[in-house]
């Protein structure tokens, strides 16, 4: 029994909620097109025509290089993390070996671990082995955190959907590797895509790790470039608005294109018991 009135109330409430979520972001779009260098920060949609702000910010904040650095780091992390999570989740789900429960528990602990709790020795060790101030100093720890969740996520998929299929494949004489690559991976595509989107969003947005690891180099990620730019021009809000949008644009594009995969990942916790 769903009345018309209930549905209208539903649309109204959801629209209001969506407006609250989107409002500040739409405000920033208008802000970013305002007159730069002015201390006044009221936004005026009629004067929001300074598209040149984006070119200025791109150049002054060195965003071209920063986006490139972020893209290199994030893509390497996403590809390697997905690639390593699959075999790990497969083994945890479907094979029996001494230490399985203990190793899995230690790995899953990584999902909860805040980077803050190990950033100090991580930095000291990286510096000792001269690994700091390059791409790998950010990539390797990011992979470490990503595979903790990734192995957990892929294991859940293999446990749920793979057991009987795999038994059939093994009876047919396929070895474990062929079973994984020929039988299971084609089925796991949606799960892999979800994992890739989550890894992309998390690692693109990551700030503390690159802040610490790249502090002694010319390398900076997009969020670092934004914060540095912000530190230099704390009240030039038109420029800051443009810089914020440049920083988040790649994530917003990926999120819009793959929204279903992302929400499935977040909602999954509520679907499985």
């Amino acid at each position, binding site marked *: 029994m769903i009345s018309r009135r209930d549905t209208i109330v539903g649309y109204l409430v*959801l629209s209001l909620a*969506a407006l609250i979520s989107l409002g500040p972001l739409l405000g920033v779009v208008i802000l970013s097109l305002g007159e730069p260098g002015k201390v006044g920060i009221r936004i005026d949609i009629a004067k929001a025509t300074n598209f040149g702000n984006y070119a200025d910010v791109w150049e002054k904040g060195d965003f071209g290089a920063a986006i490139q650095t972020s893209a290199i780091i994030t893509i390497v992390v996403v590809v390697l993390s997905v690639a390593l999570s699959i075999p790990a989740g497969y*083994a945890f789900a479907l*094979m029996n070996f001494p230490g399985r429960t203990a190793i899995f528990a230690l790995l899953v602990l990584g999902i909860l671990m805040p980077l803050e709790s*190990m*950033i*100090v020795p991580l930095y000291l060790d990286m510096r000792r082995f001269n690994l700091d101030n390059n791409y790998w100093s950010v990539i390797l720890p990011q992979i470490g*955190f990503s595979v903790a969740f990734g192995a957990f996520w892929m294991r859940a998929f293999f446990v749920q959907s793979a057991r009987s299929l795999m038994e059939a494949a093994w009876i047919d004489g396929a070895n474990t590797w062929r079973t994984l690559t020929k039988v299971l991976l084609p089925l796991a595509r949606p799960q892999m895509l979800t994992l890739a989107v989550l890894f992309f969003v998390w690692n693109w947005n990551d700030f503390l790790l690159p802040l610490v690891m790249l502090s002694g180099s010319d390398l900076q990620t997009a969020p670092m470039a934004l914060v540095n730019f912000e530190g230099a021009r704390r009240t030039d809000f038109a420029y800051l608005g443009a810089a914020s949008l440049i920083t988040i644009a790649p994530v917003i594009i990926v999120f819009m294109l793959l929204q279903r995969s992302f929400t499935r990942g977040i*909602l999954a916790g*509520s679907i499985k018991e």
Partner: protein
Amino acid sequence: MPGEARSVAYLYILPAALIYALFVFIPFIHSIYLSFFKGNGVTRMEFVGIDNYIDIVTNPVLRSAFVHAFELIVFYSLIPIAIGLFLASVLHRSRIRGVAFYRTALFLPYVIAPTAIAVIWRWILAPRGPLNSFLEAVGLGALAQPWLGDFTWALPSVGMVGTWVMFGLVLALLLAGVQKIPLELYEAARLDGAGPWMEFRAVTLPGLRYEIVVALVLTVTAALRNFDIIYVMTSGGPGNATVVPSYLVYQQAFKVAQIGAAAAMGTVLIAVIVAANLLIARAGRRDA
């Protein structure tokens, strides 16, 4: 056969486990070790036992960081879940089309970089920013504040940003859950003479148990970690009004070179996060 012992399993696990061990787990153990020392990490470190942990309890600034983190849970977690539960119970009878659009909008604040969120909200909360202009425009100019510069309002202001980030995520989660509760349950409750409050307690709340647990895990963990937004918006200020554990870890390690103190702070932080998650998981099971 499945379940058969296979040593080949170690090969499948090795690459992921190795990187995790080297760059996450061993540094974590190393951090616990360092927390029993004093020093700058370059010259010789001096063993001081549990002094760094005693400092966290006795030093008012260090202690206040954890108090602030718990206050932020109210804004990141409790307020969004309260709003979400209220709206979900109002909306349980509507079957909305175009859910994808609403979900995208509601998830967006959760997806974008916290550093960018901080820059955006520093503008909104600026002394002559949109929030104060709005308050003046509607005749509430007396409420206008230098939000982030005020000792009383700085922490709630940062918390409000967390509420904005989390409420859409929580609402989308709870709405997805409430749509799965069979309408017959509501009909049955109504036939038994249940009012809206009984209906909420007897049908909606139990039906959303898993969604509430997931929402709690995501939001409480985010509230306790919360580095980027504090770093950009307040740097812990004014005074120490908004210092939080993760910010103090960074500040002590990389600004004042107190390696041991930073490591102890980080260790207590992870203990609090793990304890909070275990508590949430247990509460979720007990209500079953």
